[in-house]
């Protein structure tokens, strides 16, 4: 019963003319929360009404406060007929429920209508008074902070990382209810928007409860998605990483805060390495592929493909069953998933990286019979997660980091996908033993590359060498991961975006036949995508991929696969071998000549790329390393000869059956096509770099120029009989052309890097391919970009570690006086206990069990945090007045920071869902015009909400969904967009001290709150 929500409607401006006769509008406003509605007076004959209403007060449960949005509807009064709705504003009041976020929402909001888009603006003032709730069994989780950011947010310190939280809620989609037949599309779209807003609120509340149960106070890396399952309903699901975060106060040593990811205490550069595995489906097929066997070695992913059919009926396909059986035991031992949605970590968190693990499953959708018990969907995800867990185990890892889940739906078929990076984490960290110093020395910057699995019992064939950096541990020849590159990692040269693109035709089919067909295709697609990735990686002379994201999208008659990652040359890993071309019929002279030409082109490209990305690994190393393992020498010899005289190579290498260079066999036209496509990838024009991770490896001195953008392209395939090859070409061109367009448009920002390039593909209709991209272009200072040294990381890491480690101690000492941080004390003390345990706990499982105990103990203490809500915030007020000009400039970025600034406050999560429809498509400039204005409107609404919270930027922004449906014949179109991000206040970096080149991001959140005032 604990809350009073107060809203005041101040004024409107730029309203549309609703009365043609007078060219004016008689506007009034309805304010609705839950089932209570208030109205303002009618403000007659004005396009800029000044209602200046009283405070409308809603007394509500905090459960409702979390679930419900505040609905504001602006109407035109009409004496004789029904009042016309001008538009609506939905305001998520969740940020007001958290002591550290915003205290008031106040500002101009665009009035939005699903048909007309933005129609003027309304000025609203909202406050919440929360009463303390002593009820331990409450259903609400007010005060749990949510972050989209996939690292520990700057200006917080992670006292403890609890682990994976997930939840999903389902409902019927209003669009498919019977009532839809009699009501207007506008009404059902509004119903949908309202419903989804409600469902996300509910979902967030439920996740919050789980977090409280675990003893945490925040969710980091919160990823919420919608599955529009059509007639079978609407699923809203979310995953995240529960943490206990402490706010860094002004006194804190700030120095490290914000490096890219992390901030927490200690980061010893532990490592992650990754390696890959691949499981049976691929394995069985790969021998028949053109690639020589070595290649399979490097397929870096554990692939699982299962097919389930019949939704709730839950008939599992054979392979899945067996897998499940195998896993039962583990599942019994441990119920929780050791998954982390974070992609970058506090120093010391990550010890080793095993490789990418992924699992996909094809399901047939079925009506959700009981929305309150979404068991089927839960079970589906459960299966997949189990799969992922077992893959990680096979890689000798106990955790999965950089974890994400996604779906692709076409009619009644749904592909569920999950992927992540198997890793070994530092167990103490998880326990929150911040007090315990590391006894061992921080591993050098290469630690994460070292293999986590047993050399003699490798989960997949891989080629190991001694680490080129420390020479003590083994490393794989190639490393694939889904996470960001750890800041301490030593790289040679610069990185670049690497994409593998693939189309596969499939027959149209229904039901199970269709699902089977799809699930049969999946392994081949994964395999091909990996082959492409690997080839492209070699072609660029790189040896590791970060931020790998593979999307497989299903349409009626084709499957699309798009893998994006950022390639780099990790100094610790061996130099990649070249690519060899081999003809199938060595006798044929013509053919041989042809092969030589191709070989030459490949070699030239490799040489060119080396120069382009400044990859000049120190030559000396090879000699030094040489002795322990014979292979590396061989390899290096091969390599050398390779670059010197390419002509002899193919012969030579073949005879060696070489272990490291790839052999591409040209045995049919397909292969030729593939090689061509390999070579047709354009490198970015001079002055541009691109990557899909937070930061570009090799660039460290960002300047403040930032341009976030979203671009969408839809391609119609006209030729009736397209082959796979033809489709691939089209798809590749589509992606390449998009990139070219970006380079062109952003040419004024040179030198500049496109960061976090996030491609999303879809097959909205039979002959359409849709690609949506969100990214940010950031300028950097060319002069200094070169000077990054390979050795800095280690020392830097250590320093930070020490500073950070001391911090918790201080906190504990005076926690009684520091009213802001009761929770930190808790975690602090708790961690001491665990620290001592931790030594004895040898396994992850034991640790987990221990942790479960803590959770129970911890939960009592969470109530203290609630008390501190009272101190909420005049802080924000001050900021607000500062930033409140006519229109606040709100920067947006998909990254977790803005260069040249530091974040001093997180104001809450932005999670918005909009639908736009039109019945006058042509008049609005066709689909392009329609979507263009819609995207601009979405940006505007996001900015307005952030500004109203007192913020001036959105970080970790992403567009999760962009579903466009058109019917040009009827002159109609409809589009759904879902976006999210973290609203923040950031201030100009005042620190004059240039960040050490290592900490790539250059932001500190150090001195916390006082920076702005």
């Amino acid at each position, binding site marked *: 019963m604990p809350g009073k929500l107060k809203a005041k409607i101040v004024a409107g*401006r*730029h309203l549309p003319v609703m009365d043609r006769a007078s060219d004016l509008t008689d506007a009034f406003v309805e304010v609705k929360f839950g089932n209570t509605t208030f109205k303002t007076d009618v403000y007659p004959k004005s396009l800029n009404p000044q209602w200046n209403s009283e405070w409308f007060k809603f007394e509500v449960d905090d459960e409702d406060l979390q679930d419900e949005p505040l609905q504001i509807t602006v109407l035109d009064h009409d004496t004789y007929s029904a009042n016309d709705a001008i538009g609506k504003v939905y305001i998520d009041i969740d940020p007001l429920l958290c002591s550290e976020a915003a205290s008031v929402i106040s500002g*101009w909001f*665009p009035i939005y209508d699903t048909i007309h888009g*933005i129609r003027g*603006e309304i000025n609203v003032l909202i406050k919440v008074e929360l009463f303390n709730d002593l009820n331990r069994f409450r259903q609400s989780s007010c005060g749990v902070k949510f972050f989209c950011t996939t690292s520990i947010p700057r200006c917080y310190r992670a006292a403890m990382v609890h682990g994976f939280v997930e939840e999903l809620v389902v409902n019927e989609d209003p669009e498919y209810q019977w009532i839809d037949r009699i009501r207007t599309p506008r009404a059902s779209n509004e119903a949908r928007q309202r419903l989804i807003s409600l469902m996300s609120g509910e979902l967030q509340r439920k996740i919050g409860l789980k977090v409280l149960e675990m003893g945490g106070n925040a969710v980091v890396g919160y990823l919420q998605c919608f599955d529009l399952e059509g007639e079978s309903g609407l699923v809203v699901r979310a995953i995240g990483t529960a943490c206990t975060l402490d706010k860094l106060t002004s006194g804190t040593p700030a120095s490290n805060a914000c490096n890219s990811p992390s901030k927490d205490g200690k980061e010893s550069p532990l490592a992650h390495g990754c390696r890959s595995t691949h499981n049976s489906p691929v394995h069985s097929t790969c021998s028949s592929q053109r690639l020589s066997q070595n290649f399979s070695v490097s397929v870096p992913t554990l692939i699982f493909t299962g097919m389930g059919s019949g939704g709730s009926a839950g008939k599992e396909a054979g392979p899945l069953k067996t897998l499940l059986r195998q896993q039962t035991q583990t599942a019994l031992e441990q119920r929780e998933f050791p998954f982390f949605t974070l992609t970058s970590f506090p120093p010391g968190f990550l010890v080793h990286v095993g490789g990418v693990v992924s699992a996909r499953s094809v399901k047939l959708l079925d009506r959700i019979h009981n929305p309150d018990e979404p068991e089927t969907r839960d079970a589906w995800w459960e299966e997949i997660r189990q799969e992922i867990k077992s893959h990680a185990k096979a890689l000798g890892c106990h955790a999965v980091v950089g974890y994400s889940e996604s779906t692709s739906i076409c009619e009644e078929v749904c592909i569920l996908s999950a992927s992540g990076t198997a890793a070994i984490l530092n167990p103490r960290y998880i326990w929150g033993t911040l007090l315990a110093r590391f006894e061992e020395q921080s591993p050098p910057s290469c630690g994460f590359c070292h293999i986590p699995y047993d050399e003699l019992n490798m989960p997949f064939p891989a080629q190991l060498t001694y680490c080129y950096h420390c020479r003590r541990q083994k490393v794989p020849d190639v490393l694939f991961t889904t996470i960001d590159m750890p800041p301490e990692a030593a790289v040679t040269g610069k990185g670049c975006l690497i994409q593998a693109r693939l189309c596969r035709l499939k027959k149209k089919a229904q039901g199970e036949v269709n699902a089977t067909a799809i699930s049969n295709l999946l392994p081949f697609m994964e395999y091909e995508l990996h082959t492409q990735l690997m080839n492209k990686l070699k072609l660029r002379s790189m040896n590791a991929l970060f931020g790998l994201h593979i999307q497989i999208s299903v349409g009626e008659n084709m499957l699309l696969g798009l893998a994006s990652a950022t390639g780099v040359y990790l100094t610790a890993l061996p130099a990649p071998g070249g690519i060899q071309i081999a003809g199938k019929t060595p006798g044929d002279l013509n053919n041989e000549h042809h092969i030589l030409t191709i070989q030459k082109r490949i070699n030239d490209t490799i040489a060119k790329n080396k120069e382009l990305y400044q990859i000049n690994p120190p030559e000396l190393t090879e000699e030094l390393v040489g002795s322990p393992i014979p292979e590396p020498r061989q390899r290096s010899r091969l390599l050398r000869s390779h670059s010197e005289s390419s002509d002899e190579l193919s012969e030579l290498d073949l005879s060696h059956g070489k272990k490291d260079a790839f052999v591409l066999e040209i045995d049919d036209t397909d292969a030729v096509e593939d090689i061509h496509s390999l070579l047709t990838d354009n490198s970015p*024009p001079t002055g541009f770099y691109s990557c899909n991770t937070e930061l570009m490896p090799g660039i460290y001195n960002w300047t403040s120029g930032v*341009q*976030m*953008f*979203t*671009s*969408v*392209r*839809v*391609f*119609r*395939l*006209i*030729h009736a009989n397209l082959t796979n090859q033809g489709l691939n070409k*089209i798809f590749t061109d589509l992606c390449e*052309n998009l990139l*070219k*367009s*970006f*380079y*062109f*448009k*952003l*040419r004024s920002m040179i030198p500049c890097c496109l960061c976090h390039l996030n491609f999303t593909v879809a097959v909205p209709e039979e002959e*359409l391919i*849709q690609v949506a991209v969100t990214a940010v272009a950031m300028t950097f200072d060319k002069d200094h970009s070169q000077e990054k040294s390979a050795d800095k990381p280690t020392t830097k890491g250590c320093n930070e570690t020490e500073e950070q480690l001391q911090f918790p101690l201080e906190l504990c000492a005076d926690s009684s006086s520091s009213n802001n941080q009761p929770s930190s004390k808790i975690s602090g003390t708790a961690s001491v206990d665990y620290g001592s345990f931790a030594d004895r706990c040898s396994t992850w499982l034991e640790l987990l069990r221990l942790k479960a105990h803590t959770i129970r103990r911890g939960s009592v203490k969470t109530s203290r945090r609630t008390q501190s809500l009272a101190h909420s915030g005049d802080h924000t007020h001050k900021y607000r007045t500062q930033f409140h000009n*006519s*229109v606040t*400039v*709100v*920067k*947006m970025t998909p990254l977790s920071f803005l260069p040249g600034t530091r974040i001093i406050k997180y104001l809450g999560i932005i999670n918005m869902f909009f639908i736009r429809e039109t019945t006058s498509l042509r008049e609005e*400039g*066709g*689909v*392009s*015009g329609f*979507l*263009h*204005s819609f*995207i*601009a*409107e979405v*940006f*505007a609404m996001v*900015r*307005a909400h952030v500004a109203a919270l007192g913020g001036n930027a959105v970080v970790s922004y992403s567009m999760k969904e962009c579903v*466009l449906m058109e019917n040009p014949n009827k002159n109609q179109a409809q589009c759904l967009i879902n976006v999210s991000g973290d609203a923040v206040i950031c201030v100009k970096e005042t620190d004059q001290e240039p960040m050490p080149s290592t900490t790539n991001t250059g932001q500190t959140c150090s001195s916390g709150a006082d920076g702005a005032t």
Partner: protein
Amino acid sequence: MAVELDVFVGNTTIMDEEVYQLWLDGYTVNDAVKVRMEGGVLEECEASADVLLSDTMDQYRTFHMCERLLHSPTKLANQLLFQIPPHRQAILIERYYAFDDAFVREVLGKKLSKGTKKDLDDISAKTSVTLKSCRRQFDNFKRVFKVVEELKGPLVENIRQHFLLSDKLARDYAAIVFFANNRFETGKRKLQYLTFQDFAFCAGQLINNWTVGAVDNLVDDMDVDLDKEFLQELKELKILITDKDLLDQHKSLVCTALRGKTKAFNEMEANFKNLSRGLVNIAAKLTNTKDVRDFFIDLVEKFIEPCRSDRWTAADMRLYLTHYTNSAHILDTFKHQVVWDRYMGVIKSCIFKMYHD
């Protein structure tokens, strides 16, 4: 295969000034692409024609969406749809309201009505400004006219505040509004040699000296309408030409002052009475709206042309008019010094401006 949809939206609205100008100039997308290709953007950025087309389309759409806001520039500053840095906003507005001298010369002094709008295709053909651009410029004139028509206070200031224009452009618009309101004839063949800037200068003079606002700045339309009382008083100046003594006296004073100072002295002396009659008659007739409209043509016919045929130099003109004006003060029977100054001050500067080839 075909691109069905292609959009690019930046959080900060991306606008290329070159493309904006092409859009303002009324180029179609395809023509704009051609122009850009010839301009060499492609080579400089390793792009292809497709890229250019896509970029041009995006920008055209953006401009099209912005256009509504540009119609009331103050909205541009507090709208939420596009995030445009203030200096860019200023450029957008300034360029949008900029006009072609060739075009404005054609409509200057015409009624900004539907009728005129229908003639725009002729004007477009004549000036080789695209029809689209003509429409934009015409609509701008009309919009500014409508808004300031109902406002109190100084014209230039009102325009500047409501349309956020630079001082220079605001003055030009004030001239356009002033001409449109008073319907000054500017299209006659004899006036063709005058540029818009000549007229704009004259308009500034008239606004500053002859309107109601020149004496009282709290009246409606103060800068748009000429001061009726003043026009009435101008009739009194007739005495300078109707009174024979006064006319002779005036002439001798002027001639005394000019003698020996110019080669055109003889012509000046010979033409004095004609010229003086011309100027004073113009003053006396200004109470008729019809004659107000012919103000410039009269100036040219009655004064400038005769002088030009006598080969006066600009310096001659300056000399003559200065003495002509000043000498009237010495005429003891001439009582209308104030009105005379107010009248001649403007006439002098207008003629100086208009006396060229």
